[in-house]
């Protein structure tokens, strides 16, 4: 992977006292790629992000950018939004964003222009002189994103950028991230909102217990699952689910009115299933899809949970150091 462009996280190991926070985390984010970073609380997401940003020195492993070890100089081209937001409450929006942009190396004039531009794009153009403390939570979040974006970084590392945002604000932020990705920025963001991640990013990395337990394009991960979701709708309600009992390895997920969904094996004989369903009542809809990302996530974490219980307390959170 030496000629890789973008971010490479290579076998990061980090122990805090007797807690293993990172246990060989490895993945990559290419330029122009948007990667969702998933994992239960305490899986090591924030610790990994801090290591990428150089806030934390890993015991082993390395962070590379465009094939070279990341240092203070390359990190100046990274933009960061920490999990716990950090802004000066009593500082005007424009000054604040410009300050961080200058710290990242922009000239004063460029920093001022960038602050205006990004705050404007995030819908805060009319509040440039307001103190951050006077803003709503969601708007503060936008300012935090503006801080991460202002120096036009090559890599964006965003820890829970959507938490606490209303749907409209989340949509604005999604649009902005997609624009950045199209412009060639590498984006790594963590989130617990799996439906949003599925909608937004083609690729995900799932960590648990300080290890990557699944990684790759969402579509591939879904396809690799041994189960499928079968949804059948009938022309009337109250058909009952006994017709499906003849299907092998099938679990009822949900049934309401005229619609029923089942978890079925990936190699289910679809023709036979349709015949059975049609025998119960006229079928108006029949779909057979890979499971949602939430199922992929659940299964990946459950599988790793087995290995974790034998690995001592390696799954305890790095935040647990607190």
């Amino acid at each position, binding site marked *: 992977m030496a000629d890789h462009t973008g971010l490479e996280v290579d076998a990061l190991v980090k122990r805090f006292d007797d807690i293993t926070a990172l246990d060989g985390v490895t993945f990559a984010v290419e330029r122009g790629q948007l990667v969702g970073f998933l994992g239960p609380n305490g899986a090591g997401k924030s610790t990994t992000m*801090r290591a990428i940003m150089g*806030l934390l*020195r890993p015991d082993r492993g390395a962070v590379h950018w465009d094939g070279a070890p990341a240092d203070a100089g390359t*990190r100046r081209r990274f933009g960061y939004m920490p999990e716990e937001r*950090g*802004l000066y409450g009593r500082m005007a929006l424009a000054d604040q964003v410009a*300050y961080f942009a200058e710290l990242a190396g922009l000239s004063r004039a460029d920093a001022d222009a960038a602050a205006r531009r990004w705050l404007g794009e995030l819908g805060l153009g009319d509040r440039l002189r307001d103190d951050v403390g006077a803003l709503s939570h969601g708007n503060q979040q936008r300012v935090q994103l503006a801080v991460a974006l202002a120096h036009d970084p090559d890599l964006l590392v965003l820890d829970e950028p959507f938490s606490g945002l209303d749907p409209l604000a989340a949509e604005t932020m999604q649009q902005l991230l997609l624009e950045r990705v199209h412009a060639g920025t590498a984006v790594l963001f963590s989130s617990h909102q799996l439906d949003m991640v599925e909608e937004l990013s083609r690729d995900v990395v799932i960590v648990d217990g300080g290890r990557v337990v699944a990684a790759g394009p969402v579509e591939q991960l879904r396809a690799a699952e041994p189960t499928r979701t079968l949804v059948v709708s009938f022309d009337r309600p109250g058909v009952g689910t006994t017709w499906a009992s003849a299907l092998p390895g099938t679990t009822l997920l949900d049934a309401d009115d005229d619609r029923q969904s089942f978890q079925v094996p990936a190699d289910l004989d679809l023709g036979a299933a349709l015949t059975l369903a049609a025998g119960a009542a006229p079928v108006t809809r029949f779909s057979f899809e890979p499971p949602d990302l939430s199922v992929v996530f659940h299964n990946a974490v459950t599988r790793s949970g087995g290995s974790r219980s034998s690995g001592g307390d390696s799954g305890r959170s790095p935040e647990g*150091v607190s």
Partner: protein
Amino acid sequence: MSAARAIGLVARREVRERARSKGFRISFVVVLLGVVALAVLPKYINPTTSTDVGVVGTVPNGFEQVLASTASDDDHVSVTSYPDTAAGEKALDDGDIDVLWDPSAGQVVWKGDPQATLGAQVRAAATQVQFEENATALGLTPQQQQQLATPPTMHDRSLEPTDSEEGSRAALAVGGTIVLFGAISMFGGFVLTGVVTEKTSRIAEVLLSQVKASHLLAGKVLGIGSLAVAELLALGVALLVAGSVADTISLPEVGLPSVLSTVGFFVLGFAIYATLYAAAGSLVNRQEDAQAVTFPVMLPMLATYLVALSSIGSPDSPLMVALSLFPLSSPVAMPLRIVTGDPGALEVVASVVLCLAFIWVGLVLAGRVYAGALLRTGNRVRVRDALRAADDVRG
């Protein structure tokens, strides 16, 4: 980015945001008014005294002038004539005059107990007037009169060397120390709360992804320190201007080296203690805990201050020499010695170098504590743990 630019950016933000804050402006105006009041009030609290002398009958020629010449500068003497003893005694009884001279009766009349000084002044003036009258009656020429009145030459001479400026010097040194103490408490507190704010609001995490912790702290100390020096200069100028307008203050005639050393060590002292405050701030995670760490930080300063004040008579004692070299105490002890004692140039240079070394090492260590403590939240962090955790972060 160069270290200088990073430190400069942080310092500029500190100056701009502090100066913008309402609390800072209000406190500045309050202190400014206080200083002006300090300069002007003595004029009203301690106005010039006036002495009123009554004379029964015609006031002899020259009596008032002679009386005035024996009074002190801020004592205004007025002489009033009364037609008879009764009128004079009434004025004395009413408090219009302090003393009544009745030449024909040969009496100096008081309302109560005689006042020795005023009595002597009145007698001396009366004697002088009488002397001139007698001389004229004896037919002496004015030249002969003058010859007769010429006093013997009497200059003051002391066996021990005296320093007319010693009072001013000690006042400057002690005053400088008090101002240093106050300024460090106030502006050091700014550094402390600034650091704690950045830690608790996790701004530090964004900052440290771009700036080294030691640069961050250095910028903070530099920015707030510049503000402190600027405010003190402004207050100093206000004090002098108001004082000279009100004519209550005259610049002590102290040598430039004394002033420069006091100011120079003020800056060093501020930097040292602000660095300590920054490190202390790195160890706490809640604004409420911040005050708890301020006392231990100020303790060495307080101790030095008390020791130095009690040793003001022996500024070059071994204890004072040691204190003037040790970085935590030298910003107080060394200017005191420079002003009131006689430290060698080598000692002064050594003291400055030790201060600078302390600041540098202090900032680097504080930076490590800051970065190390950042990832540990919860209760107060022990220095040892923070330094150990600093191995986990870049310094």
